């Protein structure tokens, strides 16, 4: 296995951390996420490159440190430090029943669209986000397509009136 699970002492000894294919991965939880990210930003991770989510409905077993309880959803945040030339990944577990997370907008305003995309395709709500609406799918669409229990197959044309008509 490429992932050697170990406990990281750097981040106050509280944030479990792993290595995955040469990149550091932190596993904060929902409560301390904002604080962790604020600290990281001060350490030089000034760019939030990407926010995405994974639905682990069909694959509950995965490489997580022992102290992290796997949940159905996982938010993956990719940060980049220009000065260190280093990437860092944060994986946050989100339970199925309460799919919410505090927004990163006040730290990285660039997360706005990325969070909206996750909201649209996974149905995870970001609390405090200025504009938590669908971004890719039509506004009155039902369901969240990238969830694993959403069928991929074709569906009939959901013909709604054109905007502005």
């Amino acid at each position, binding site marked *: 296995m490429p992932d050697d699970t170990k406990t990281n002492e750097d981040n106050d000894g509280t944030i479990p951390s792993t290595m995955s294919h040469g990149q550091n991965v932190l596993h904060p939880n929902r409560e301390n996420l904002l604080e962790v990210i604020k600290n990281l930003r001060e350490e030089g991770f000034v760019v939030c490159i990407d926010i995405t989510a994974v639905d682990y409905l069909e694959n509950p077993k995965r490489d997580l440190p022992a102290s992290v309880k796997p949940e159905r959803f996982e938010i993956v945040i990719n940060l980049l430090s220009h000065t260190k030339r280093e990437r860092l990944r944060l994986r946050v577990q989100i339970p199925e029943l309460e799919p919410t997370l505090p927004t990163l907008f006040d730290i990285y305003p660039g997360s706005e669209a990325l969070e909206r995309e996750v909201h649209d395709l996974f149905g995870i709500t970001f609390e405090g986000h200025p504009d938590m609406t669908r971004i*890719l*799918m*039509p506004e009155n*669409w*039902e369901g969240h*397509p990238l969830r694993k229990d*959403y*069928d*991929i*197959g*074709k*569906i*009939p*044309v*959901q*013909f*709604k*009136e*054109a*905007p*502005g*008509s």
Partner: protein
Amino acid sequence: MPKLPILGETSNISEDGLAGFDHNFLTGKIEDLVKWSRTRSMWPATFGLACCALEMMATGAAHYDLARWGMEVFRASPRQADLMIVAGRVSQKMAPVLRQVYDQMMEPKWVISMGVCASSGGMFNNYALVQGVDQIVPVDVYAPGCPPGPETLMHAILQLHEKVENGEITRRRKEMDGGAGIMVEQRDGQTATKVIIGK
């Protein structure tokens, strides 16, 4: 009888009277003139969607030059366009817009479905795409390919020209009530209602 320079072939004139003339500028039908003008001046609407849009623009550029058929006049306003080239994948969100643009175009109007995504959903058989633009608008010519090269698009256009020259001058889609015959299905299990749009 000899072939006259302006009047054309006149050999059947003894049997058929004036109908025996080949069509020339004196006896030609105005219908033919109209069809000729439509094939020579078919202004496309700028309706680029995805990858195919690039090939569509490449067809208009120097190497292939749609201007030869008088088609370099891409009209931004659908009111003035004759031809809608649906170039690329049509998403569920785009479908109503596409239909609206089609409705805004004035008759006579034609549609080329360019590329497999527009024609059948292509490799993306999933929730997001309309599986064939013919569910939304009536299509005249399908251009295959992913994306179709400029040559394929030109071939499709020439096919369309042929269709226009041989087709009816008006009431082109009488059998379809002038619309596409769209099925609007209720997703939550209600009874389906057929709505014909564009009548």
